[in-house]
């Protein structure tokens, strides 16, 4: 029986094409903007996560507030944290600055990262040739380094530069380092940032002891900042808390605020919060548009009910129950808004596809958003169609017939 009503509704929609199309417009625009915003938002999120994916997500930074305590992170602390904190892949010093790398082919500016062996986890690109330096090499001040593939090409003329040597200059002093490993290249985004700072910027990793020797730093007295790397699957916030507690106990520091911390989870959480806020705002705007669209549907259904008063009278006189008339007009309102939803989804995806293409985002259409948007638009037809449909259904056949 229900498909008779749907066929009927479709016939009426076909007979009033222009009017129906105009009525749908509000819903089309509302749904299209929701779909476009969510799809572009998902593309942007994926883009950012992909670029951030270059960094380890299980990483945290600890930072001592020097106005509160004179205690520092020492090599002994690093060793004890490694031994005592479950789930911790390791703690590392992190000395970062710029120097110059000279190979047999070229000399370039170089951004260096010097730490313990676990600093390998800082970035996620895999080793392409050779190996990373070990904790023994760190302790023994071994003059070794790891560079990226494009830097090996630039400095040595070949990506497989393992075994070759480069000259590392820092603050007027220099040291010859043996390349023991070559990493896969960094992501486009990181390289773009690096190259923006200088014409060409190499990225080199080496034991912190080597850098400390070059710069006359006394690491034994400790530094203000270290990095923590969690094992895969560990909770970086949890690691931060236990590590801070461990360090405070060892150094007898009581002040709650002595050590500040920041984890990558916090950073990506903040980004997610911003996106969620943007989505919430756009959803609000779209909801207003959908309500306006719904009022349009109600308006046109009221017109339709008035125009078809006589038809309603005929239907009732030959035996249509109240429910049959109600369902007929509700079905019409819901089909109009459902079709509006479908057109809106199509339009929204099209807009998002064009935007994602131009912005070089991946086009990620979330099926749940599509289903929800369509269901929601149909719901609007139901809600705003109810009043006109009830009006039609409650007509007295005798009055409606003589309209």
């Amino acid at each position, binding site marked *: 029986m229900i498909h008779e009503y749907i066929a009927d509704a479709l016939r009426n929609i076909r007979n009033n094409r222009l009017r129906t199309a105009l009525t749908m417009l509000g819903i089309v625009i509302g749904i299209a903007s929701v779909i476009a915003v969510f799809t572009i938002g998902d593309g942007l999120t994926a883009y950012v996560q992909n670029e951030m994916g270059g960094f380890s997500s299980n990483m945290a930074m600890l930072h001592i507030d020097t106005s509160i305590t004179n205690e520092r992170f020492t090599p002994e602390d690093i060793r004890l944290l490694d031994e005592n904190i479950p789930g911790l892949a390791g703690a590392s010093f992190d000395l970062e600055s710029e120097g110059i790398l000279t190979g047999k082919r070229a000399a370039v500016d170089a951004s260096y990262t010097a730490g313990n062996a676990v600093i390998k986890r800082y970035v996620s690109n895999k080793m392409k040739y050779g190996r990373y330096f070990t904790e023994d090499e760190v302790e023994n001040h071994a003059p070794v380094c790891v560079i990226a593939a494009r830097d090996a090409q630039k400095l040595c003329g070949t990506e497989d530069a393992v075994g070759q040597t480069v000259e590392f200059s820092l603050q007027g002093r220099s040291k010859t380092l043996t390349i023991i490993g070559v990493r896969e290249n960094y992501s486009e985004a990181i390289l773009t940032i690096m190259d923006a700072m200088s014409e060409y910027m190499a990225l080199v990793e080496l034991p912190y002891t080597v850098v400390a020797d070059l710069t006359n730093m006394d690491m034994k007295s400790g530094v203000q900042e270290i990095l923590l790397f969690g094992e895969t699957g560990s909770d970086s916030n949890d690691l931060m808390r236990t590590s801070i507690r461990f360090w405070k106990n060892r150094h007898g520091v009581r002040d709650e605020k002595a050590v500040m911390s920041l984890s990558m989870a916090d950073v990506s959480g903040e980004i997610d919060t911003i996106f969620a806020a943007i989505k919430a705002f756009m959803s609000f705007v779209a909801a207003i548009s959908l309500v306006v669209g719904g009022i349009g549907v109600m308006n046109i259904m009221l017109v339709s009910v008035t125009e078809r008063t006589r038809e309603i009278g005929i239907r009732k006189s*030959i035996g*249509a129950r*109240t429910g049959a008339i109600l369902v007929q007009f509700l079905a019409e309102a819901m089909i109009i808004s459902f079709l509006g939803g479908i057109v809106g989804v199509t339009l929204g995806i099209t807009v998002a596809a064009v935007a994602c293409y131009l912005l070089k985002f991946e086009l990620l259409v979330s099926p749940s958003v599509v289903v929800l948007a369509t269901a929601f638009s149909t719901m609007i037809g139901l809600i705003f169609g109810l009043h006109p449909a009830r009006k039609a259904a409650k007509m007295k056949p005798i009055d409606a017939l003589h309209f």
Partner: protein
Amino acid sequence: MGKLVDVIDVSKIYNPGENEVRALDHVNLSIDTGEFVAIIGQSGSGKSTLMNMLGCLDTPTSGTYMLHGMDVSHMTDNEQSDVRNREIGFIFQGFNLIQSLTAQENVELPLIYRGVPKKERQELAVTALQRVGLGKRMDHRPTEMSGGQQQRVAIARAIAQAPPILLADEPTGNLDSGSSREIIEIIKNLHKEGRTVILITHDPGIAKQAKRIVTISDGRIQSDIINPDADVSGEAYEKNRE
């Protein structure tokens, strides 16, 4: 067994109070199965109100209307819809077809509301349309048909579900004389096949086709006579019209 139609002391009052209009004033009327009754009256006589009452389109202010042994005067809207659907086939002056539907779809409509399965419904509609001589125009819409053809579609719709009562309200009022004669012939034949026909008209020429003539004026039944000249030929009808 009781009468098919039993109107007992029914009154219908519009605008109760000082300016009240007694459209029906203590009317009593019984009709047996198989009768052919004409209800005749001038406009304003109350015949339309009586027709609405008989067709379950309106409820009486007082009194009782028994149809097929059921008290239909105090039914809910939906119950009345069901009674109209099962018991009564309407033939209106203005045809009352739905313009957006084809002839066959119009005829199927009451069967849809009764819940008849599609295949059976289509067969019944085709049979009814063939019965009124429209077997070749089933896909036409009302706007593509003459008045006489439209009224025949309406008759097909009324008889498709084989209701016990055919209720015709000025069925020839909007038609030329040729079409009128065809329609009256069809109605007379339907009566001959055993259907109960109630014909409401202001036209004595048409009323004389019936075997029983009920005259109504000022909301009261003035006379209720057996018509000795009933079942006359089409020529007699023409003569009566003049």
